[in-house]
């Protein structure tokens, strides 16, 4: 008999709840410790030779931007898992990741705007990078709205998954938008060749990115657990209605 893979093991929601219940406290603690270290390193980071102290906004803005795209990739991969492999937890993962991704996209736009004002002289410009991230934010809101507007869970999950897969086209657009006559600076860390950022600023950025990624994963795991519980409540309520109808001698609706 073949050994079950990790995804097969996690297909059972009860097993997922047991495992995630053990992992979540450790993940949260590690994220908090790393965040404290990252904030300390950010505070101690030297001045940027052009932007001065304002470059410190980078330590929250850039991880938020990375995670806004990571969150969408997670929604899309989970949606693929639902449509192709029909994995029981794929839809739970996609549904849980959407609001978290939306929040990180919102913080990316907000901190970018607060960085833009002192550097560019404006909170907002209709620049390719800024506009494409704003579209990503609306895409997240669209996914959340689509789900909540359809009562039947299975249909809502399939439609949201199709929209999520169509919307993945935004990720390369966001990535390459800085090369289209953009005011936004080009990639300085995730690029071909060595990062163009000095190590004294790169390390705090990487630690903050690591901390915020762990925070994202912890929030996602918690949201998935909540969703599993929500579905359990729904199932128990329907069993209760079924049992009451049987006792009353009527077929359950």
């Amino acid at each position, binding site marked *: 008999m073949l050994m079950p893979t990790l995804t097969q093991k996690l297909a059972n929601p*009860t097993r997922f709840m047991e495992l995630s219940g053990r992992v979540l406290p450790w993940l949260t603690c590690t994220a908090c410790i790393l965040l404290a270290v990252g904030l300390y390193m950010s*505070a101690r980071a030297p001045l940027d030779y052009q932007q*001065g*102290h*304002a470059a*410190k*906004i980078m330590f*929250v*803005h850039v991880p*938020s931007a990375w995670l806004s795209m990571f969150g969408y990739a997670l929604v899309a991969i989970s949606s693929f898992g639902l449509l192709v492999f029909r994995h029981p937890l794929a839809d739970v993962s996609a549904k849980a990741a959407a*609001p*978290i991704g939306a*929040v990180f996209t*919102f*913080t990316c736009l*907000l*901190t970018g705007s*607060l*960085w833009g*004002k*002192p550097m560019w002289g404006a909170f907002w410009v209709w620049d390719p990078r800024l506009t494409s991230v704003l579209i990503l934010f609306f895409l997240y809101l669209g996914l959340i709205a689509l789900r909540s507007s359809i009562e039947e869970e299975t249909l809502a999950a399939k439609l949201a998954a199709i929209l999520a897969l169509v919307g993945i086209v935004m990720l390369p657009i966001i990535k390459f938008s800085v090369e289209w006559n953009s005011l936004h600076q080009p990639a300085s860390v995730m690029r071909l060749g060595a990062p163009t950022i000095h190590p004294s600023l790169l390390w705090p950025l990487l630690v903050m990115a690591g901390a915020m990624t762990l*925070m994202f994963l912890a*929030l996602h795991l*918690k*949201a998935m*657990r*909540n969703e599993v*519980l*929500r579905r*359990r*409540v729904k*199932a*128990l*309520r329907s*069993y*209760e209605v079924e*049992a009451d109808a049987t006792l009353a001698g009527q077929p359950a609706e």
Partner: protein
Amino acid sequence: MDLGPHAAFIWAAYATTALVLAGLAAWLVLDGRRQQRLVDELEARGVRRRSSRTPPSRPQ
């Protein structure tokens, strides 16, 4: 900590990020408690999932 002439923007960026993420975490914790309480209430009323029900014994 002296953050120069753009201190207000820097503090605002960090404060709003902290506030938004803390709000999200609090919402998830409260939602989790609510869902767990609902499961507990239903189970206390004797409602069980099909998987956790005792199968009927076979007649001898």
